[in-house]
């Protein structure tokens, strides 16, 4: 494969490989273990290595400048960087190589940090030798590298938003405002999600339903937004810029849809809808945790309610005495971390066998907001707050301060010793026994007329969508982003983005920010006529293909591999062919092909052979 | 390399000195102290490797200043680590690089 027929870069043509190898110290992450200077000495002796340098931070501007300069001054035509995971910086260095004037795919990334220095902290000599072998493999691979071009595909410049809560509405409003057409699909019959049900939001004390209505108004009449309620995604295929979606509808129960407060009537539902979109935003939200029967008396004691139920009912109560279910209430308790921060062996596992060991983020502030509201409206009511840590972060601390000043009494329990809820005596409905760590671990007994469980958030159950979009899911059942710091709203599926609580618990303000961030990431690829995809897809050598179709049965991606009948020497023959837009480059077809007729671009079988040789070859590792 | 200053350079230097004249002598004193301390530590290090407390005893300078100078010298390549002595790192002078 080393003989290239065509090349976009004259530099690489008919030239002997001149390979530059760049070794990164990564501060000390690598060089504290790997002897980078000795390594560089050995690398220089490898075949066709024309330059080898060591830098403290290869990814820094001076590091990058070195590569560009060497390519130009030393006529390098292939480049290896040995540094961190390609996940972090492969793209960075491909861009650098391109800046230097080379085809970006004449580049090989070697991970001598995660796979070497970090893994072999206590064996510097071994790690150095391993690094050398890894670089040798990359050099070997580069001997067989050829310039590749990114695949350019058409771009459907519109977005599908799944979920009609505030995250979905906000992304739709922003995108439509920017001129990107949006198809919004909501499973239920109304828009606005959970926020529409909130009496007051924090920290601004806005009316939840008012906020939701405003957002709904922004999208419902927008010419670029089409809303479908009682709808679900039935089929998705394709890739960024070219997702083909089928939307199906729940049958209408009866004609009473108009009773819907948020007006499902905005959407003209049909039997089914087909659309092609460039990007997809998943804004399917989260649900409040539903306590198990008997969990802190829930479901058994009528005086135990969840926060969601409490705030709904509190909003409807008249002022005066605090009457709950017909009874005057004097003592109310709030219990934090119900369904969150659970501990193995203390809290019973959930249906899937896991415990919810994460913090639900919104609940501390939400609880204190309710406690404060309660104290403000009914000053006679005693309020007790059972907590582990009060997590009113940032300005939310104000709720903690104010609810304290309003007279809420706080008691701190340890997760290992959760409060015990028992039937009350002497006229109170309940009795909560708690080992209070603010009072030197003394067991304190609090008589209560009402206990509000500060329930956390759990991921909304969307197995079909997860399956359709091949969405990664974290251990906490929430959808998983590519990288929590670098790319917090993107998923491993290019073009599919996350907005709001589908990803993790958030409050309204954070949800709206996240939605904005998802919207911008959805808009960026749509700002161009075409999308560019990595060229690492399968390619069939028609001459070698014997039409056995084994690859077709193995391919997991619909439409990626298909057969066609061609005329070979006057006879018709069945040959496999690849649709590069749909191929994920998984290599399953390569593995089953009996004639070595299929290769992955950028990862050819010859290259694998060369890499294996490179790893086992006798290299000057001693010394 | 303009090893010799041109007239333009001299004019610029003059202007700079005028605009940043060290009226109360703060900078002058800072630089004098800096040079003096650096010299003392360099001399102490020339006698052999030492930890920061050892260098402090030899020079009589404030201990945090000694650490700072050693750190600076390490950064600019005239000092390197030479093992440890209990809870303290030993530093040694690199003769050949001493500019």
């Amino acid at each position, binding site marked *: 494969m080393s003989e290239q027929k065509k090349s976009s870069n004259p530099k690489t043509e008919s030239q002997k490989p001149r390979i530059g190898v760049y070794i990164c110290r990564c501060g000390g992450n690598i060089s504290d273990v790997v002897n980078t200077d000795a390594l560089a000495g050995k690398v220089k002796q490898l075949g066709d290595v024309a330059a080898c340098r060591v830098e403290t931070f290869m990814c820094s501007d001076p590091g990058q400048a070195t590569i560009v300069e060497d390519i130009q001054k030393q006529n390098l035509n292939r480049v290896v960087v040995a540094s961190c995971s390609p996940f972090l910086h492969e793209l960075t260095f491909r861009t650098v190589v391109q800046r230097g004037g080379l085809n970006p795919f004449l580049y090989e990334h070697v991970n001598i940090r995660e796979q070497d220095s970090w893994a072999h902290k206590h064996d510097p000599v071994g790690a150095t030798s391993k690094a050398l072998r890894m670089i040798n493999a990359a050099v070997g691979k580069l001997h067989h590298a050829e310039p590749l071009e990114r695949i350019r595909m058409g771009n459907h410049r519109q977005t599908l938003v799944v979920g009609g809560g505030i995250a979905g509405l906000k992304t739709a409003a922003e995108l439509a405002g920017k001129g990107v057409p949006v198809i919004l699909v909501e499973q239920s019959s109304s828009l606005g999600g959970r926020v529409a049900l909130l009496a007051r939001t924090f920290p601004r004390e806005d009316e939840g339903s008012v906020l939701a209505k405003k957002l709904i108004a922004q999208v419902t009449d927008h010419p670029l937004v089409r809303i479908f309620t009682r709808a679900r995604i039935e089929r998705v295929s394709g890739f960024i810029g070219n997702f083909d979606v089928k939307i199906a509808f729940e049958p209408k129960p009866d004609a009473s849809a108009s009773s819907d407060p948020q007006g499902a009537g905005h959407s003209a539902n049909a039997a089914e809808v087909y659309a092609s979109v460039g990007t997809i935003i998943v804004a399917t939200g989260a649900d409040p945790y539903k306590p198990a029967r008997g969990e802190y008396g829930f479901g058994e004691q009528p005086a135990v309610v969840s926060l969601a139920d409490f705030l709904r009912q509190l909003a409807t109560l008249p002022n005066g005495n605090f009457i709950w279910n017909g009874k005057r209430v004097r003592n109310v308790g709030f219990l934090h971390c119900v369904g969150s921060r659970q501990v193995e062996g203390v809290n019973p596992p959930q249906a899937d066998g896991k415990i919810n060991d994460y913090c639900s983020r919104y609940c501390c502030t939400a609880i204190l907001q309710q406690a404060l509201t309660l104290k403000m409206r009914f000053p006679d009511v005693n309020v007790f707050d059972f907590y582990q840590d009060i997590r009113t972060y940032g300005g939310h601390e104000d709720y903690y301060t104010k609810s304290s000043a309003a007279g809420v009494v706080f008691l701190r329990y340890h997760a290992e010793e959760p409060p015990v809820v028992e039937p009350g005596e002497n006229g109170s409905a309940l009795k909560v026994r708690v080992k209070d760590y603010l009072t*030197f671990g003394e067991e*304190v007994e609090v008589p209560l007329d009402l206990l509000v469980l500060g329930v956390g958030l759990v991921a909304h159950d969307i197995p079909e969508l997860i399956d359709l979009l091949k969405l990664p899911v974290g251990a906490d059942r929430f959808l998983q982003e590519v990288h929590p710091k670098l790319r917090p709203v993107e998923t491993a599926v290019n073009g599919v983005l996350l907005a709001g609580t589908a990803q993790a618990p958030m409050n309204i303000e954070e949800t709206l920010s996240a939605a904005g961030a998802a919207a911008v990431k959805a808009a960026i690829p749509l700002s161009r006529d075409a999308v560019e995809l990595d060229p690492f897809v399968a390619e069939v050598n028609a001459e070698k293909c014997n039409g056995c179709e084994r690859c077709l049965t193995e391919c997991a991606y619909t439409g990626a591999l298909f057969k066609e009948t061609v005329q070979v020497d006057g006879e018709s023959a069945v040959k496999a062919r690849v649709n590069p837009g749909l191929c994920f480059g998984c290599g399953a077809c390569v593995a089953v092909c009996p004639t070595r007729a299929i290769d992955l671009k950028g990862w050819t079988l010859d290259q694998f052979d060369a890499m294996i040789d490179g790893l086992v070859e006798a290299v000057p590792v001693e010394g | 390399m303009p090893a010799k200053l041109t007239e333009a350079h001299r004019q610029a230097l003059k202007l700079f000195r005028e605009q940043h004249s060290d009226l109360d002598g703060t900078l002058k004193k800072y630089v004098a102290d800096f040079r003096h301390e650096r010299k003392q530590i360099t001399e102490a290090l020339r006698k052999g490797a030492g930890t920061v407390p050892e260098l402090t005893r030899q020079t009589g300078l404030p201990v945090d200043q000694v650490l700072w100078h050693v750190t600076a010298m390490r950064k600019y390549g005239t000092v390197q680590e030479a093992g440890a002595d209990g809870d303290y790192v030993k530093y040694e002078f690199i003769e050949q690089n001493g500019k």
Partner: protein
Amino acid sequence: MGATLRHQTVDPDFRNALARFGANSVINCFNCGNCSAICSLSKGNTPFPRKLVRYAQLGLKEKLVQSPELWLCYSCGDCSVTCPRGAEPGETMAALRRYSIASFDPTGLTRRMYESPAVTLTVTLLLAGVLAFLLVSLGQAQPMHGWIFGLVPYEVVHKVGMGVFALLAIVSVAGSIGLVRNYRRSMDGDSPLRGLPLRARLRVLKQLGQEILTMNRHAQCNEDETPAPWYLTPRAIHYSVMAGFLGLFTASGLNFLFVYFLGWGWFPPARVLGTISGLLMLYGVSVSLYQRYRGKATCVTSSALSDWWLLAFLLVLAVTGFWIETAVSFGWAGPVNDTVLLIHTTMAMELVLLLMVTKLAHAVYRPLSLGLYFARQQRDIYEANGGNHD
């Protein structure tokens, strides 16, 4: 902590009761522990103020009055100044002391006086009226222009004095017993002195005596304050008030003993002691009043009625005392001087009478608590050494 009361029910209404004693910010506390850790006096097994603030938050009344820590505090105010929540633990401590004094008074008068300025005023005036009437009506038997000490005949002084001291003794003993009983209860009925060898008991006495004489603990307060001149430190001011008070008390006693009982007619040591003590008192009380008025020192971020009451009382006492002394020295007479004497005598008696129901009660409770605290320290040392002292 020792043993604890299990299953203690909380009473959040207690903080409302406490608010009437001047603690308004108990609820603000989020139990970070800064106050206890900033306090130089909060040591070993007697941590405060947070412990007491916490008990107050939960309304654990018994635990509150059982806590000797209440009286170990000198109100330096460091805790209130550095409190991250503005919860004013120092004020809470002061209010809890008032609550505690009130709770030892079976008559309930103290509580009412703390809760209401009107009651305080009424009681003060009423009692003054009764005393004055008593003194004047009996004194009227003598010619008004006579030698002024003839104003109050011996029998009156004697009878009233006996009555006063009897009353005082009863109230003090009742209060002290209450405090000790509470303290014992917090130790599960154990006495802090039980099993302590004599030497250790003597050491407790010695420590207590030293502390009363030097107020060394008070000197540990206000670590962060830029040191005031020695004569303006809270310790010096408090010391001068206390020494002045004790000195005057002693001088009066000596005078009574030698001049009236033994009929010496003139006893210079008592006069000298009285003069010095009076000056000390005058100085301490004036500075204290001024500082409270200006809100200058950390310890006087806020002052309750009981604080003003006591200081005002002491000030008037000191001023009238000097007036009388001057009058006696120069042989002045006349109705003005008689009236001044009347006021002085009335107020002195009233102060003594109200000892256990006013802020002055701390003069009894603090030494007592300190004694118990020292005893407990000695016992801890004793037990730590396996029963062998030293």
